[in-house]
């Protein structure tokens, strides 16, 4: 497997990740504790400790296009148990953010990525989450129109699905926050 592509690119990528993470990749000594306790390891293409090493080796394309970064649910089991106190959960956030900023649409886990995007769009337009609208837009985007639909009648009956969302009054402020940071 080709690892180091270009030393300068490797360094740039490592510096970018470390600056966003506020942590050093070299702290990780590959014990594998993070991967052993990861609840979603069975679905991943690379284990969390492999992602850390691959990032250190500059394998930017591979990590940014991995299933792993999108499958991580940020449960923080890895960071809690890491004997070196390395920000394992944090590196997944950083890699997702870099992928997002580079405009990379995940080919392998695009639904997870889309859910995050649709969720933030909903916050941007209402200031709060309007669940029905969020689910509708997500389903429309992913074309999974009927998945989970069998849950809807009973959820409606139980009062769990509100037909109207609440908007906050100072939406301009929310718009400004998004404008500043998007």
């Amino acid at each position: 497997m080709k690892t180091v592509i270009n030393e300068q690119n490797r360094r740039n990528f490592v510096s970018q990740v470390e600056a966003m993470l506020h942590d050093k990749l070299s702290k990780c000594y590959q014990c594998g504790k993070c991967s052993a306790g990861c609840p979603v390891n069975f679905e991943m293409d690379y284990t969390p400790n492999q992602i850390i090493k691959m990032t250190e080796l500059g394998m930017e394309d591979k990590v940014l296009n991995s299933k792993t970064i999108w499958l991580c649910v940020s449960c923080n089991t890895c960071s809690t148990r890491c004997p070196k106190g390395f920000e394992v959960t944090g590196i997944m956030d950083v890699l997702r953010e870099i992928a997002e900023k580079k405009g990379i649409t995940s080919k392998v886990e695009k639904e997870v990525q889309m859910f995050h995007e649709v969720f933030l769009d909903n916050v941007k337009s209402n200031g709060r989450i309007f669940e029905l609208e969020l689910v509708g837009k997500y389903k429309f985007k992913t074309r999974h129109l009927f998945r989970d639909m069998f849950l809807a009648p009973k959820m409606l009956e139980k009062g769990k699905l509100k037909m109207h969302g609440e908007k906050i009054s100072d939406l301009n402020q929310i718009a400004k926050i998004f404008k500043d940071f998007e």
Partner: protein
Amino acid sequence: MKLAYYPGCSLKGTSFEYEVSLLKILEALNIEIKEIPDWNCCGASAAHSINHNLSIALPARNLAIAEGEGYESVLAPCAACSNRLKTAHHELKSDDILKKKITDSIEMPYNADMEINNMLEFLIKIVGKDKIKSMVKKPLAGLKVASYYGCLLVRPPKVMQFDDPENPVSMDELVGLTGAEAVDYSYKTECCGAINSLSKPDVVMALTGNVLYDIKKHGADLVVVACPLCHSNLDVRQREIERKYSEKIGLPVLFITELLGLSFGIDPKDLAIEGHMVAADRVLKKIGELPK
């Protein structure tokens, strides 16, 4: 001390039972909380997953409003909201450059003196176990209850600073106060799959199934939680998990506030217990709230 309340989006929607029951028990306990005016979504898992600045700025706006209104303490009953508010608070307190950037954007100062409590912390630290115990009019003797904590209440420990991240006991202690028996089991802090419920339902059902079947194996009558997302996965997806793994579970999932309310002698209807997908009738019969 003036107590602010940050409900978060789930408590106004799919987890309305949580809000109904917590307001009811706080009324019984004679504790006043006030909703933060014009609060916004904390950004939940989506913001921190793809945009770090947003994940700090969105909760910061709520904290700054609360601080501006003279509050020193915020109750965030949703585990995800409390996690995001605490994380934002922690980062703003320790990173001046970030703080400048964020306060410039929200156009409000934030001194970062706020105390943020999740539901369990609030009940133990602010209300107090003695007061809760004194309110128990109808002990739930004979009821076996499994407390499910999930991830966000206890992890990451350096930011949450609450209970033990591997073997938390605070909710079990609250269960004990009601007269019910706290059931010990192995999956207390295993993840339910959280936000991926819609995007990776198979993964979520596998993880949630592990939790539910383990609780079942240990003989619990019901599960209590303090997180809307945990509740959604354990309750709403339970029938589907039973079908997928061809094994009955039949475990009602209550919010801890509902269990406390029952022990205070509050009518189950006033606690919105009928709002759950898995009916709690068997539990209500066992404690004499429904005819056997």
